C-alpha cells in the first residue's frame, strides 16, 4: 500500500489554476523528485499535502486515510514533515529547542527520550556545534540544515523538502545530499522539490515534472530527463 496518495487534486487562486488534476502514489520509503519551471505550482502542491491549503477538488490520503479535511497540526502528527524553501526557524529559540518543540509536539516523543533524539538528529545534520545558538543568528546553510533537522524531529514517515539545496555552494550541497540520502536509507519517504538537478537525481527513484499546475510526466529520472517535452518546457531547448 502507498504511504501517500493524491487523487485528482486541483486548486485555483481566482481564475488561475495552480494545481490541475494531480494524482500520484508514493510507496513507503520511496524518494520522489519534483521539478518544473518557476510558478509551476510546486510549492502549492506541498501546501496541499501539508494542509496549509485545502484543495478545491480531489483528496489527499495518508496511509489510506483521507486527510483532506485535516489541519496541518493533525497531518504533522500523522507523519508528514516539511521543510520550507525560505527557512522559517523559531528565531528566539536555540537550535536545540527548535528540534525539541518539533519532537515533543509533532513527533509526540516522550520527554525523557526527546533530548537524546534531538541531539542525535543535530549531529547527523551537522548542527551539533550550533545547538545552543539562537536559531535567528544562523547563516543560510545552517538554517537550511535546521529546516531539515526540525522536520526530521517530528518523526515523519513522509518528509517534504522544498528547494533545500538552493543557494548553497557545491561542497555544502554534497554534504546536504549525503545527509538526505542517509535519511532515505533509514526508510523515510521523501518528496523533494529542487532546481539543483544533479543533487536531486542522485537520490530520488522517480521524478515528476510539473508545468502550469499539471503533471507533465512521472517516471525514472533518466527517462524523464530524456523526454523531448521535458527538455522543451523545463530546459528551454527546442525539441
Amino acid at each position, binding site marked *: 500500500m502507498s504511504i501517500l496518495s493524491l487523487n485528482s487534486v486541483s486548486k485555483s487562486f481566482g481564475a488561475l489554476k495552480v494545481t490541475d488534476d494531480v494524482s500520484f502514489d508514493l510507496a513507503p520509503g520511496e524518494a520522489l523528485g519534483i521539478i518544473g519551471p518557476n510558478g509551476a505550482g510546486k510549492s502549492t502542491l506541498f501546501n496541499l499535502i501539508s494542509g*496549509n491549503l485545502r484543495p478545491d477538488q480531489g483528496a489527499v490520503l495518508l496511509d489510506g486515510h483521507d486527510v483532506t479535511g485535516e489541519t*496541518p497540526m493533525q497531518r504533522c502528527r500523522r507523519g508528514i*514533515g516539511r521543510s520550507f524553501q525560505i527557512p*522559517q526557524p*523559531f528565531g528566539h529559540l536555540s537550535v536545540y529547542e527548535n528540534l525539541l*518543540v518539533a519532537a515533543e*509536539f509533532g513527533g509526540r516523543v516522550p520527554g525523557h527520550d526527546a533530548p537524546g533524539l534531538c541531539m542525535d538528529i543535530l549531529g547527523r545534520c551537522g548542527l551539533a556545534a550550533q545547538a545552543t545558538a539562537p536559531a535567528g543568528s544562523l547563516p543560510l546553510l545552517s538554517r537550511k540544515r535546521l529546516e531539515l533537522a526540525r522536520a526530521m524531529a517530528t518523526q515523519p514517515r513522509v518528509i517534504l523538502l522544498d528547494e533545500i539545496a538552493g543557494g548553497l555552494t557545491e561542497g555544502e550541497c554534497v554534504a546536504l545530499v549525503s545527509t538526505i540520502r542517509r535519511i532515505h536509507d533509514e526508510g523515510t519517504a521523501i518528496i523533494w522539490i529542487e532546481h539543483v538537478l544533479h543533487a536531486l537525481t542522485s537520490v530520488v527513484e522517480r521524478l515528476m515534472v510539473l508545468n502550469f499546475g499539471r503533471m507533465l510526466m512521472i517516471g525514472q529520472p533518466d527517462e524523464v530527463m530524456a523526454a523531448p517535452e521535458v527538455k522543451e518546457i523545463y530546459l528551454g531547448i527546442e525539441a
Partner: protein
Amino acid sequence: MIWLDTLAQGILLGGLYALFAAGLSLVFGIMRLVNLAHGDLIVLGAYVILVMVSVTGLNPFLAATLALPVMFGFGMLLQTHLFNRVLGEDILPPLLVTFGLSVVLQNVLLETFSADSQKLSMGPVEAVGVPVGPVTLGLVPLATLGSAVAVIAALNLLFYRTKLGRAFRATSDDATTVQLMGIYPARIFSVATGIALMVATLAALYLGARANFDPTIGPARLLYAFEAVIIGGLGSLWGTLAGGLVIGVAQATGAAIRPEWQILAGHAAFVAVLLFRPRGLFPRAND
C-alpha cells in the same frame, strides 16, 4: 532617613505594579494581543476573591487559592470563544473587542456588586511591620513584592525550562509554522490567557489588601501595567518587574515631595524612560 523609607515604600509598591503588568506582558509576548480589559480583569479577580471570602469565611489568602482555578478557567473560555476569533493580521479588532470587554466587565460588576468600594480584609497581619535596617516595612507589602519576584521567576522557569514554555515561545515567533510542528496555536493562546488571569488574581489579592476597590478602577491599573511593560521592554519578564519598580519608586518619591504629585511622578518617569530608552530598559536582542 525619610528618603530611604520613601525608596523602600516605592519598591514595595512597584511589586504590586509588576504583578499588574506580568499578565499583560505574558499575553502580549505570546500572541501580540493588547488586552485593554486587563485592569478590569484584575478588578474582577478581586471581586471573585471577595465572593470566596464571604461564601467560605476564609482568609483572603486562602480564598485566593480558590479563585485561581476559577480565573484560569475564565481566561481559557475568554480566549477560546472571544479573543481567538479576532486575532489576526489586523491589530484593530482585538483592541476593539478588549475595549468592549472592559466596558462590559465594569458594568456587570457595577450591577452585581454596586458602586460601593470594597476591601479584602487580611485581619491582624495588616498591622504587622518588619524592621529592616533603619526602616520598618509592612508584612503585606513585603509579601506583595515577594510574590511579584516569585511570579516573574516562575514564569521565566515556565518559559525557558518546560515543554509548554517552548511551545509558548515558538508560537510567539511564528504561529503559522508551529502548526507544522503539531502545535495548535489557539490552544496555546487559551492556556496563556488562563495563566495570565491567575497572575491577575494574585495581583487582585494584593490590590484589595492594600486599598479600596470598586468597579471603575480597572482602567487606571491597566495604565500602570502598560507603563511597567513598556519601561521594562516588550517581551522581557524581568524587565516588566523593573518597570513596575521604576513606577513605584517614582510615585513614592513624587508623593513624598507633594502628595498630589504621586500619580504624575509615575507618568513622568514613564515619559523620561521612553525619551532616553525608546525600546525600554531590557529590549529583546533580535527583534
